[in-house]
């Protein structure tokens, strides 16, 4: 089985090729079978490979499909490398990916570009699998760029709306900034170590660089740049909320479960480099902390159901970065996995809500959907509970591990822990705010407003098996996924094992109680019917106070970073481009032509056609020449 590892990305790739060649003429049933089936096959294969790998007891397995580039010392192949970390990733990608594909066959059923949708989705899964399977950084970069491309294509899937195109371009360009940083990191690694094979780098780097040496810092900082871009962390997080313009299954697959966690994967994969550069590793932790707080506050203020989830994703990846930064590698991967489950669940449930409400996104125009959309309601309850890390859900275990690890950090332990717990509190607030506003209270939904041309705009929950089944599975995983143990200990064995911090009972209890407290406050502000009015009143007061109003706007806009980039970079570039539309260089060369033409018109004046003028100039010239000769 392991020898067939090459088939893993090949299945979805074949699906992509078939769907593209069909040029949209394939029936929807056939397209569904190819689209979802290819990923399903990949999942089955991934499971078989996992069983064999885990039974074999080997640490790793690698296979070269063919030589890719062999230039001088550079020797890269299309080679796949399998270890515990990869295993977790391929199972998440193909498993969650398959569920989301299945869901999409229902969600996109009415879309005319059905086949195009699945072709992009399949290409995405193929690229993502290559990304995690790659045994060298160039191949990883191939997957990295491939998923970026698919993300671009899928965000802008409904291409007729220019706003979607803008969001798609923004996503691609912002992540490309990070990618470029990563590419430069690759150049640096190669010029210093002479190899881009990940395992070789992990061995060579400690032997050539001392801890904290400049090269190690530079290399890991550049890789961090790439990770920050892909995983939407500060300061490159601005693209993810806009990326919600894509169809909701895309948000679930790409912008929650898989692609955005590629940055976490990259850092975990190259963790040795980060351990060689403690300053950068600490930076990772603080980037994570800042991001999780920023995104938490911003999520509080959003009205768009998907933007709330998007900021929540940014925030949760912030937790993963925090874990990476304190060296809790397996906790980060564990949270990556549980997050994939519950965030995919939340997004798919949100998709059901949105579909049932005729593409209404504003949560304050929903309300009291508890009875009308029971499936979505229960999915949201489960997902939010896991997201909030309420006890015994999957998120509880992973977040617990991260916070404990943060507390154990020798110098900044307390700071990181307090920040993390505050973030957890915010998570509880915003996620249950979403639940309460959408599913409780009184209904503000106006069908004619959302779908003015649809006469049958009734709220009917779509619970076709294709959409129901994935929700069920994901809900189960969100509840019980915490019991799965990720087999990554061997991967991070050589790195210094962090002792489990000896946490006082008090702090631990506090850590568990704070999210519950958050849920309760959220209930007071948004949920309970007697308090709904009071909550609204209080909110009104807050927003109208000068500080509250300012904070509201500041947080709502995602801390104004969009605006900052817009003015500082986009406008400046547009202006530069605009003033030089005609290319000054061309003006320089056309200037030569202009001078020649000017000289021509000046000299033409001497040609009067008058013969005596010619004779006089002849004589004058003669006199001057003789004069020069005589009086030299």
């Amino acid at each position, binding site marked *: 089985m392991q020898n067939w590892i090459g088939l893993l990305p090949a299945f979805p790739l074949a699906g992509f090729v078939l769907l593209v060649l069909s040029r949209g003429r394939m029936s929807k049933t056939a397209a569904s079978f190819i689209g979802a089936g290819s990923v399903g096959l990949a999942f089955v294969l991934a499971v078989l490979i996992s069983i064999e790998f885990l039974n074999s007891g080997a640490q790793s397995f690698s296979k070269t499909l063919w030589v890719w*580039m062999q230039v*001088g010392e550079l020797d890269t192949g299309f080679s796949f490398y399998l270890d515990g970390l990869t295993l977790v990733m391929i199972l998440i990608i193909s498993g969650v990916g398959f569920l989301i594909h299945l869901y999409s066959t229902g969600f996109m059923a009415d879309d005319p570009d059905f086949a195009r949708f699945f072709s992009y989705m399949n290409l995405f899964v193929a690229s993502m699998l290559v990304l995690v399977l790659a045994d060298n950084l160039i191949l990883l970069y191939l997957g990295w760029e491939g998923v970026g491309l698919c993300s671009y294509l899928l965000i802008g899937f409904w291409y007729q709306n*220019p706003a979607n195109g803008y969001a798609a371009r923004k996503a691609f360009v912002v992540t*490309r900034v990070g990618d470029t940083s990563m590419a430069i990191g690759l150049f640096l690694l190669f010029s210093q170590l002479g190899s881009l094979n990940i395992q070789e780098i992990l061995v060579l780097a400690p032997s050539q660089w001392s801890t904290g040496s400049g090269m190690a810092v530079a290399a890991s900082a550049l890789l961090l740049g790439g990770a920050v871009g892909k995983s939407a962390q500060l300061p490159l997080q601005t693209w993810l909320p806009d990326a919600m313009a894509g169809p909701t299954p895309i948000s679930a697959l790409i912008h929650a479960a898989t692609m955005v966690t590629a940055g976490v994967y990259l850092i975990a994969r190259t963790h040795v480099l980060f351990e060689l550069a403690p300053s950068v590793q600490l930076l990772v932790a603080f980037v994570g902390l800042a991001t999780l707080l920023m995104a938490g506050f911003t999520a509080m203020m959003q009205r768009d159901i998907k933007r709330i989830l998007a900021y929540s994703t940014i925030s949760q990846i912030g937790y993963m970065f925090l874990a990476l930064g304190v060296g809790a590698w397996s906790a980060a991967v564990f949270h990556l996995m549980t997050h994939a489950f519950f965030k995919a669940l939340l997004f798919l449930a949100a998709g059901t809500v949105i579909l049932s409400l005729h593409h209404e996104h504003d949560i304050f125009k929903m309300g009291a959907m508890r009875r009308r959309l029971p499936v979505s309601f229960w999915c949201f309850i489960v997902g939010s509970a896991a997201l909030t890390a309420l006890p015994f859900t999957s998120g509880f275990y992973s977040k617990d591990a991260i916070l404990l690890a943060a507390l154990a950090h020798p110098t900044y332990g307390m700071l990181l822990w307090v920040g993390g717990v505050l973030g957890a509190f915010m998570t509880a607030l915003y996620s249950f705010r979403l639940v309460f506003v959408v599913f409780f209270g009184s209904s503000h939904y106006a069908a004619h407003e959302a779908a003015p041309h649809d006469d049958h705009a009734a709220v009917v929950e779509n619970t076709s098996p294709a959409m129901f089944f994935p929700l069920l599975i994901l809900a189960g995983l969100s509840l019980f996924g915490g019991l799965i143990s990720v087999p990554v200990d061997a991967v991070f064995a050589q790195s210094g094992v962090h002792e489990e911090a000896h946490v006082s009972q008090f702090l631990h209890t506090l850590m568990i109680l704070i999210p519950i407290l958050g849920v309760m406050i959220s209930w007071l502000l948004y949920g309970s019917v007697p308090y709904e009015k009071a909550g609204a009143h209080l909110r009104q007061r807050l927003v109208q106070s000068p500080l509250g109003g300012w904070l509201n706007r500041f947080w709502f806009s995602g801390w104004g970073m969009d605006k900052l980039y817009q003015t500082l970079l986009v406008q400046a570039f547009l202006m530069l481009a605009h003033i*030089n539309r005609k290319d000054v260089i061309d003006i320089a060369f056309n200037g030569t032509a202009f001078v020649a033409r000017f000289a021509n018109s000046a000299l033409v004046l001497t040609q009067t056609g008058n013969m005596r003028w010619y004779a006089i100039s002849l004589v004058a010239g003669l006199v001057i020449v003789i004069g020069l000769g005589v009086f030299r």
Partner: protein
Amino acid sequence: MIVLALVAILFFGGAIAWASEALDARMPRAVALLSLLASAAVLLIFCFSSSPGVMLAGGQWWVLESWAWIPRFGISLLVGVDGLSLLLLLLTLFLGLIALGAAWNEIQERVGFFYFNLLWTIAGVVGVFTALDLFLFFFFWEVMLIPMYLIIAIWGHENRAYAAMKFFLYTQVSGLLLLLAILTMSYLHFVQFSRFSFDYFDLQNVVIPGALQTWIMLGFFVGFATKLPIFGLHSWLPDAHSQAPTAGSVLLAGVLLKTGAYGLIRFTLPLFPEASADFSSIAMTIAAIGILYCAKVAFAQQDIKRLIAYTSVSHMGFVLLGIYAWNLYGLQGAVMTMLAHGLSSAALFMLAGGLQARFHTRDMELLNGLWVKLPMLSAMALFFTVAAVGMPGLGNFIGEFLSLLGAFQSNRVATIFAALGLVLAAVYSLWVIQKMFHGQLRVPSQYASAGDLTLIELLCYALMAAGLVWMGMYPQSFLDVSEVSLLYLQSLGGGGE
């Protein structure tokens, strides 16, 4: 004989094509197709049947032949094919066929003369890629220009006279510098070995004192760099490309630009290793500036062909960067970029030409949302744009990645700035996609009935796409061919600290 056969087939094919117009207006293109296929067949048979024979300075030569021409001045018909030439010859003939496909229905007047010019341009390029006698090289250099000038001047678009004249002046002036430098070299050979020689291998033995070497090197450099073109000498290119007919643009972007890079690799570096090494940091700086500057200017263009033209200049910056990085990675990167850019830019120009043929405009403001109407053409545009952005898995990535990888080892600052070009490439490329293919459909109403790709177009695009995927997924088949020549070049020292 192989080179002679190639050039002869193309020259005579061109002449016959011109004459055959008298019989039937459809004859010339058939003749052109036949002669291109014949020369491609000759080259392919040669490719698969022979192996490198002569080992001589400059690498392994598959062919190295010489006939006397003007012995008094040491001028001979010295031609050679090594791995580098072979790759570029394949590219030339392949794109020749593509250009033929582009012209097939587009050219309706003075058909015979058009195909005559087309074939003679290709013949000139074949000569340039094989000539090793500098006099012969210069001869072919001129042969390639004049038919191209005529193609732009006769079959071009609204502003063709200006564009053709600009193209001609730029290339002639830089050609003059090149000629002066060549003559100086020959004279120096006369001084040192008491006979004139234009032989590539002879001239490598000439010892040139410091300052003079820099000047002669600059003569060669400017001659080739105008063709490449580099930043500062590029302004002929947007005009020439946007005014040329589609086949002309395809040949210009795909092949003619590569003669500049070829000249740098084949002549400038090996003939003047010391001066070039001193010059390399300047050249790499120019390359980085060009990459960023032209990407920025490209973004501001409204004329789709001008935009693609500027992106060409930007991408040629990677070639320059790779060449002057002067190590195996950079050189391989430059060669791969030449090949891949040859295909991707040719395809993009053909797409722009196809749009102009359908809607009679190149203005991006007038063409929006074409995906609804022309899904296949738009998908092709997306594919080649993505290739040009440098998506891994397609040829351009291999080239740009290796160029930058090599350049990083010799000049970090320039490389980092050049890498920012990757971001700008994404900006302008996606802008084009958004503007022309996504969004709401809007086209000039009188041409609203335009149809999607024709069979010929589809075939051309499919071939080019397959080529790019091949280059991206298994570049080794190309890297192996050029490796020996480039290894020799690397051994001449210079960059790559």
